[in-house]
């Protein structure tokens, strides 16, 4: 009978150190919280707790308008509301557009929109929303608030056991955070556009007439870009592709290593997120190049 080894394995060492880091960061009180999915299995796998914990703040950092970070936050909020509770949006800019939320299969009966009349009430309203047991997730665009305010918000979300999703500019990524997770969102172009050199004489025409393709692949009534040449069928299909891509990077996470990243894509018709299976020829070439020495070495 062999005696148990006294030397800890590498896995045990990592586990012990992770627990130590969590203890130092004061996470012991929230470890028992329920874990919610982000809406993307690949992103869940990247997070140490395999998802987002209830009772925590999550920051989504993106630069400029039209980045799509709020859409990703909204998907996470949708998942948080699946077991009950309402989704609250603190809409200080008065421009949140609910039809977009309906596209993500969010029930408007469970959507609460708060528009404080002045900026002074923003943090108070957010505190109330985070503290309430009736709210499962809160989306907000916080202003330039001080650390005390964010600490107060952290305590509020712990009391309410909801999920606080804060959309912030990328410029604050070096600043300290009271959030459990800080994600950087970088939008990516969907793919190579199928447009080629314009031919001004080409009139607008429905796609099925121009390609002569089977009706199942046609787009009735849709008109291709004026001046485009007749695209190949594959190009036409590519043109009709409806999705959106991002690169997500973990800028900061409590109790885990930062720096992990992945590319995700949204399938717009179904509103689901999945990891991108890249077919970009440049990526493929680089992957093949990376594997080549191995094959050569085996062959040698």
């Amino acid at each position, binding site marked *: 009978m062999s005696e148990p080894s006294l030397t800890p394995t590498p896995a045990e060492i990592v586990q012990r150190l992770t627990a130590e880091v969590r203890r130092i960061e004061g996470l012991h009180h929230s470890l028992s919280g*329920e874990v919610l999915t982000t809406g993307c299995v690949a992103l869940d796998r990247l997070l140490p707790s395999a998802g987002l914990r*209830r009772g925590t703040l999550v920051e989504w950092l993106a630069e*400029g*308008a*039209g*980045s*799509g*970070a*709020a*859409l990703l936050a*909204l998907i996470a909020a949708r998942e948080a509301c699946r*077991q*009950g*509770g*309402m989704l609250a949006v603190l809409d200080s*800019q008065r*421009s*949140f*557009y609910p*039809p*977009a939320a*309906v*596209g*993500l299969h969010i029930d*408007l009966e469970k*959507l*609460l*929109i*708060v*528009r*404080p*009349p002045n900026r002074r*009430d923003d943090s*108070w*309203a957010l505190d*109330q*929303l985070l503290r*309430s*047991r*009736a*709210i*499962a997730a809160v989306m907000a665009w916080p202003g330039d608030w001080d650390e005390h305010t964010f600490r107060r918000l952290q305590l509020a979300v712990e009391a309410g*056991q909801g999920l606080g999703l804060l*959309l912030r500019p990328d410029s604050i990524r070096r600043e300290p955070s009271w959030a459990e997770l800080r994600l950087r969102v970088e*939008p990516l*172009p*969907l793919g190579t*556009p199928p447009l080629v050199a*314009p031919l*001004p004489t080409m009139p607008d025409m429905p796609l099925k007439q121009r390609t002569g393709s089977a009706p199942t692949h046609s787009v009735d009534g849709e*008109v291709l*870009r*004026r*001046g485009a040449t007749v695209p190949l069928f594959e190009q036409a299909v590519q043109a009709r592709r*409806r999705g*959106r*891509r991002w690169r997500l990077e973990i800028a900061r996470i409590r109790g885990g290593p930062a720096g992990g990243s992945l590319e995700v894509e949204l399938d*717009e*018709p179904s*509103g689901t997120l999945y990891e991108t299976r890249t077919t970009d020829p440049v990526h493929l070439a680089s992957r093949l190049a990376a594997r080549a020495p191995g094959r050569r070495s085996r062959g040698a």
Partner: protein
Amino acid sequence: MKHGQRILCIWLPDWPLERLAVARGELKGRPALLYDVQPRGGGLRVVAYAPRLAAPLAGASPASVRRPGNQRKTSRSAARRTAGIEPGLPLAEALALHEFFMLRSRQPLELHLEAHDPLADRLALVQLADQCQQFSPTVGLEESPRPDCLLLDVTGLAALLGGEAALAGQVGRALAERGFTAHLAVADTIGAAWAVAHYLPATEGRVLEPDRPVHKADRVDKKKRAEKKNGVEKSHGQFAMLLVPANETQRALAGLPLAALRLPAEMLDLLDELGIECVEQLCRLPRWSLHARFGPQLVRRLDQACGAAEEVIDAQRFAVELAAEWLLEHPTDRRETIETVLWQLLPRVVEPLAGQRKGVLELVCRLECEAGQPWLLPLGLFRATASVKHLFDMLRLRLESIWLDSPVAAVRVAVAAAGWLDLEQQQLFAEETQHASPRHLAGLVDRLTSRLGRQAVLKPVLLADAQPEHACQFVPLAQAASGQQRVKKPARVKGQRSADSQPGRTFDSGERPLRLHSPPMALAVMSVAPEGPPLRFCYEGREEQVARFWGPERIETGWWRTRCVRRDYYRVETGSGRRFWLFRQLHDGRWFLQGTFE
């Protein structure tokens, strides 16, 4: 019929429009049109129209307004004043007529177009009935799906107020001062009073009341002229009235058309085909024959009007006002003192309600200041509550939002609306982290509403409108819950399904932006062809190159508002993967940013 019974009927012929004008003062003087959606594909039809809201028509007496059952017999002058827009006309035709009418007008005004809201009309009429309780203890609404009549039992009350004419005049003046046009009639039965109120000019001159016939419309006009001369012009309504002497009911009804008997339209058409036009002709026919040929309804209505059959007023039951007041011996501006007073006052108004299993839905706190205007702190709650502490917390939040510039001399709290309490069974093993509890939600909404106001806590409702700015409406959650404000009925427009079957069109996740600019933001855009897609645009001082686009999605709508909207929308993706929603305005080719896909 009760012996000696006297009924006062108040008919408000322009009720939906005048109710709107009173509720929304900013609409006064503008043309307004109410429409509704007809069932089974009947389209949009006019319910009411006024070339100028709440403005008395020049030379028009109240008697010239439309009456039920004889819309076909509209006089030429009345048709000229309303541009020929009558109830039941298709909306498209009405709008075309209105445009034509405005073209001839020296001061064309923007038409206010709104879906008719019968529930709001009914609630407002109930409120008016409440106010009429000062004239009679028995006040009710007429039996109709869309009532516009009030019925008052004034038996034995005339002597207290100087006669029936004085009583009716007092009621008419009170309504006119509120801005309502009214026809009043006093008769022995509900049916007769209703008939005479609706057909005043037909009876005028035939039945003379012993108390001197009075037509107050002229008097009101004189008063208005005098006010105008003095530079004071108020928005008054007009009223006319007629008294049918006791036991003169049959004679008063004799010359009236059959529509005065409150008969359905099909029966009126049938009687018209048979050549029976007035009540007198009907009375000459044998009763058994009427019953056999037309059913019991005709005979019942005739008997009710003549007093041979019983009919009672369905009296409204009004809650006794619940209010409590505290006069401070020494006026103070200390909040602690005011809070202590509130803590003492609230149980006085809450406990009587709690005994009836009711709670407070709306509360008004009034702080009488030593100098200046009093402070009014209205409180609207998401759910009825009988918790003094909850109400106290809400009022304290409201108190924090005001600055008392003068000491408070008196504090008054009054319940403006009450509702049934929702009873919840306590859970023995309640889950601590349970979400979606109505109690928690009510508490949150009340707190937010108390500090931020009703318009800050909203619920979105999709509408069947193709124009993005109008495709979503935000309703205050506190009002939506208590049912005090109904959501505007969406219009049915070309190319879209009925609003009843589908409240709003839904889109895929990427088809509509998460942030909408309303109004849209003008952009400098370059496109390769005059009607082509965008290639480059300038946004926030930076030039963005369009790498990909989806569209155009053409939206043509809104012709019934001010101007037809014709736009080609493009979803564009820049080289950096950011997405925007742009459109080209087709009538001038200008580009706008409508939203960003955040």
